[in-house]
């Protein structure tokens, strides 16, 4: 198992390095400089500003400087928000994203698994069809459709919940964003769980457990579910990536002061250092989460554990 995990780690680190490199050169290939959006600067001042940020050095030197900085945990200053470093910006804005991201993650796993297990146990029944219909709708309707519709229904028409805003993370403000973010994941997780459960319930070891006379809840929860959640564990990485992508939309629609909103704004403003820093941050996060999922997978699947 240790070898398996080391092998995974050996992939993750070069991946991160390549991500840093690709992000650096793609951003620098962009036409236009980050100072273009400001009022026209006299050439001498522009030169000075560029020198301050090291833009006058050869590209490879800039790249080398950047890598050294990253290794020291320094992503450089923001080019647009003077007096702030990229790390500070991430530190100041990660909370709303983390709160809704984690809530949506927990919600989608709890609800998704429950829906999937119940649907599998009543396969081809009315409940099963209803759940899977909802799941298909959840997959097909993107969050930028569900979000405004929910704002319209629960916010504007019924007035139950605030339409948008963060308000220091007040629970009513969180309901709609978390729901919108979790819905596609709930749909996918319930489908995966249902498929896994149906296969597990038909397997020989479940028949053996039945033959032993074990009570049904023990069979379902202890024997079948354990096998059924395995494909789910490999989906955890993509699920987190989906939540991160979804947060770009959700934070924008609900006007939440989080990283997703910041990322889109920075990309539009060509704030190189912030965009690169956040891409590296996102990539590292996804790699770390994938690694955790691998750990969990190894712990659950004896075939991996013993290999």
């Amino acid at each position, binding site marked *: 198992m240790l070898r398996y995990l080391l092998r995974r780690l050996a992939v993750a680190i070069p991946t991160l390095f390549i991500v840093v490199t690709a992000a650096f050169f*793609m951003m620098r290939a*962009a036409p236009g400089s980050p100072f273009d959006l400001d009022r026209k600067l006299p050439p001498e001042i522009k030169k000075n500003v560029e020198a301050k940020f090291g833009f006058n050095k050869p590209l490879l030197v800039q790249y080398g400087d950047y890598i050294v900085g990253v290794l020291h945990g320094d992503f450089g200053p923001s080019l647009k928000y003077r007096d702030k470093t990229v790390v500070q910006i991430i530190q100041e804005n990660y909370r709303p994203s983390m709160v809704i991201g984690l809530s949506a993650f927990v919600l989608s796993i709890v609800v998704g698994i429950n829906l999937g297990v119940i649907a599998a146990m009543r396969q081809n029944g009315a409940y099963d069809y209803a759940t899977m219909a909802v799941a298909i709708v959840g997959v*097909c*309707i993107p969050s930028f459709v569900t979000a405004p519709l929910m704002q319209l229904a629960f916010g504007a028409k019924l007035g139950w919940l605030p339409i948008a805003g963060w308000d220091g993370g007040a629970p009513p403000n969180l309901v709609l964003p978390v729901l919108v973010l979790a819905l596609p994941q709930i749909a996918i997780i319930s489908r995966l769980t249902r498929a896994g459960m149906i296969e597990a319930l038909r397997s020989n070891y479940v028949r053996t457990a039945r033959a032993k006379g074990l009570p049904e809840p023990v069979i379902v929860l202890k024997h079948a579910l354990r096998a059924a959640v395995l494909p789910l564990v490999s989906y955890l990485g993509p699920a987190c990536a989906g939540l991160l992508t979804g947060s770009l939309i959700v934070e924008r629609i609900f006007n939440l002061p989080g990283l997703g909103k910041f990322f889109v704004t920075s990309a539009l403003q060509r704030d190189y250092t912030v965009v690169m820093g956040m891409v590296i941050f996102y990539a590292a996060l*996804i790699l770390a989460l994938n690694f955790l999922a691998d750990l969990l997978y190894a712990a659950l699947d004896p075939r991996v554990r013993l290999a």
Partner: protein
Amino acid sequence: MSQITLTPGSRTTELMGRAVKGRSLWDDARRRLLRNRAAVIGMAVLALLVLAAAIGPFLVPFAYDEINKNDVWAPPLAAGHLLGADALGRDLLARLLWGLRVSLGIGAVATAVSLIIGVAWGAAAGYLGGVVDEAMMRIVDVLYSLPYIFFVILLMVTFGSNIVLIFLAIGAVEWLTMARIVRGQTLSLKQKEFIEAARAAGLTRVAIIARHIVPNLLGPVVVYVTLTIPGIILAESFLSFLGLGVQPPMASLGTLIADGAQDMELAPWLLIFPSIAMAVTLMCFNFIGDGLRDAIDPKDR
């Protein structure tokens, strides 16, 4: 050594007749697909949508960018606007049909791009194997680990949003899964017994590829293509929603939804009709994709 005599109407002839006529893999698949009600409905609705996108704009008495000062926020059915009009008095039906055309077009073209890159990449990796395979798939892994929308955003920011670039950018990002599927399929097909049997039976390499590898490769690829198109329509709408995709006065389903979301309290129809169009389109593709998967991949049944 008695010879089998064939009397008309006997069971043997019947069997022989059927054997001679033969049912290819694809006949089987088509039969199974046509028995799937959701998939058939999906195909019918999709055909209607494509037809509407193709000829619809010519049948509506308004142009998609025609501004009518008197019809600002006209509700559905008012002033000849079947689905109402937007903040500039532009006919929603005309814009919706145009948006459908743009979204479906982007879906088709970008899928073709992803198909070409993905199949070439995956087949090369799977066929060459060894170090080359390892390196090529590592690149795929790296791209996978990025939140992919970042790449597209970066491309749009880097080169400005024009519609051709949207085609290419999305297609260039969406080929990863295709490459993985094709590679895996090629790898496992290369050493299947039936390929060996075909070789032993003296089939030429071309015949083996045409008769055994391509049909087996084609199945998953076709299924994945049907699932890629809605993914791409979604990605384009996502970008357009963020303001990075199709630029006004052009419309796509994404921009229409984004515009509708802004005025949803004053004119909810501007949000509701495009949302329905988007959901129906995506659902059709998903039903067809699921149906095709059940039909083509006998393992899942």
